[in-house]
């Protein structure tokens, strides 16, 4: 089943659009949906769905997940880590109110096929109050987030990151920049 889909890269933005910065992944994914990206890339705005996203996850060979992450840094800080970098399940994700969190679903999909390599681009939130706008700190981080995602995509495709990273993104930089 998966063999026919080799080379699919899924950019998945998740979060709750009604809780301000919690929706940062959704905001970033929506911007990326408007961009001209290589045909191998599928951008999905996953909302707060957990289990229900398995149908797109099993089609992907590579996942780049964009989400709000409480890592303890300044608001708007950006983290990049692999799914394996997270401490073991399931204690880590206590604050999730998904019945099953997105990272758990990615691991669960491993029971019926290969688990896609998953990198998380996380953004430190400040405001989780009810509201549909991002805080200024988090909104400012979005261009950098998109640049990082594009670099991940480029690296996965074996392209020059510069070529992809500069297209339409004000924060486009050289791959050798310390990010």
């Amino acid at each position, binding site marked *: 089943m998966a063999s026919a889909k080799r080379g699919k890269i899924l950019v998945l933005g998740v979060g*709750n*659009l*009604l*809780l301000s910065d*919690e929706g940062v992944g959704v905001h970033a994914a929506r911007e990326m949906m408007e961009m001209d990206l290589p045909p191998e890339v599928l951008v999905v*705005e*996953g*909302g*707060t*769905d*957990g*289990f*229900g*996203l*398995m*149908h797109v996850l099993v089609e992907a060979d590579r996942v780049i997940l964009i*989400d*709000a*992450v*409480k*890592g*303890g*840094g300044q608001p*708007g*800080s*950006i*983290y*990049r*880590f692999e799914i394996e*970098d*997270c*401490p*073991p399940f*399931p*204690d*880590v*994700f*206590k*604050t*999730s*109110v*998904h*019945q*099953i*969190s997105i990272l*758990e679903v990615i*691991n*669960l*999909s491993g*029971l*019926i096929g290969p688990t896609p390599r998953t990198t*998380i681009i*996380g953004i430190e*939130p400040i405001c*989780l109050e*009810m509201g*549909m706008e991002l805080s200024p700190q988090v909104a400012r981080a979005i261009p*950098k987030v998109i640049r*990082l995602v594009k670099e991940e995509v480029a690296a996965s495709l074996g392209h020059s990151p510069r070529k992809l990273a500069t297209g339409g993104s004000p924060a486009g930089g050289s791959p050798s920049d310390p*990010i």
Partner: protein
Amino acid sequence: MGRRITIDPITRIEGHLKIEVEVEKGKVKNAWSSGTMARGFEALLLGKDPRDASYVTSRFCGVCFSVHQMASARALDVAFGAQVPWGGRLLRNLVMGAEYIYDHLVHFYHLSALDYIDIMAIANYKGKDSELNKVKDKVVGLVQRGDTFPLTPRYEPDEFSVNDPDVVISAVKHYLDALKMQIKAKNMGVIFGGRAPHYQSIVVGGFTQYPDINQIARFRSMLDELAGFVNEVYIPDVLAFGTGPLLPLAKGGVGGGHRNYLSYGSFELNEAGDELVFKPGVIFNLNGTKSIEIRPFEQKRVTESVHYSWYKQDKPRHPYQGAQVFDLERPDAYSFIKAPRYDNVPMEVGPLARALVDQDPTILGIMRNQGVKPGAVARHAARALETKKVVDAMYHWCDELTAAMTKPGFKIHDTDHWEPPAEGEGAGFFEPPRGALGHWIQIKDHKIANYQAVVPSTWNASPRDERGVRGQYEESLIGAPVPDPENPINVVRVIRSFDPCLACAIHLIDPKTNEILKFMVE
């Protein structure tokens, strides 16, 4: 005074439902159900264009998003005076039908079944079936790596747990098969829904996207596969468990609770709308299954009490008069969930309520012949059996849609009622997989003046009302056997049989440690 046990959270992996029980002499004597997270997204809608409601409400919940879109669109249909053409109603039904199959399979296999089996028995499987041995190797491999999530239950197996290795291994095989099946069900919904999650296609007045004949053909072929799984695997599994090892729980009516049931009714089978898959109705105080009195549902009888909830409000109010103003100082309050009541009485909603209101002959037959009483096991059976009813209706809707498409003037949307009225109000009702869902909207100056949603888990998980009467989760726990206070597995079984879902808010990644800091890049 019995011993108090707290279970928080109770959904399989995550959730914001806390259950406290007091156990005396091995049985639950008293129980409290608390929603531990503030909601109240309705406030976001005030002042917005009413047409936004179906999109915004679909963000209320990450698990059951599309059903809010449906209930919201129906409330708007009423408020706008829109007449949804048969084509639009058929498409809505097909998308919602796919949701039923998805939800019920995931609920049984992935969120509940593991409470009833001793997963470790799998290591004792001695059979030769190569596929089952693959399953055994996979699970044993996970156990050896210490990575048993998500297969291990949180509680120890008890006398009701199935530990026959052949049965356990086939259940786990079906767990894995159902993972693939739920993917198919999601993909099927996407054919007409446009995208998932958060379908775009259900709007006030009908549906946004015309179907073509190829889509219907694709939909049907996926439906064939899912129907096969429902009829040949899911229903037989549930019935084999329910009338086999779990029969004592089923006959004991463990998890029965108040015997009041409410269904709003859903899923028209004909254009006139007078034949439904699920009939609307109310049952008060069910007493046996011989003669069941069904009263008509009247929406004016719905109220919400906040006596034990963290909200400001004087007395129980109809949703049109409701508001979401928090009062964290409220004395005696213990939940963020309000207490919906019908004629001042708590109701159970969901598959068992639908089956009883429908007087479904299959479930009533099982209850009579096997002596099964309303409770946790009956709920699982009703859920499995109604999946078949929905699947059968989906074939019928595909036929109806195919026929309707070829007629001149085929419509899927009432475009004459797209603009919001200056004033208006409407109540929209739907029966999603988890039970009765109602949205109430009031419009003033073309904008939303008030909006209230009363969701299925609010009915079932409600706290006590101003008369001190327990909600249905609370009542259903009374008398549940808990021989070992360290292992309250029956409490979990009872609550999970309702398909609890309070996944209505935050979900961000929040590692316990500050480990993630070292991965900071900007």
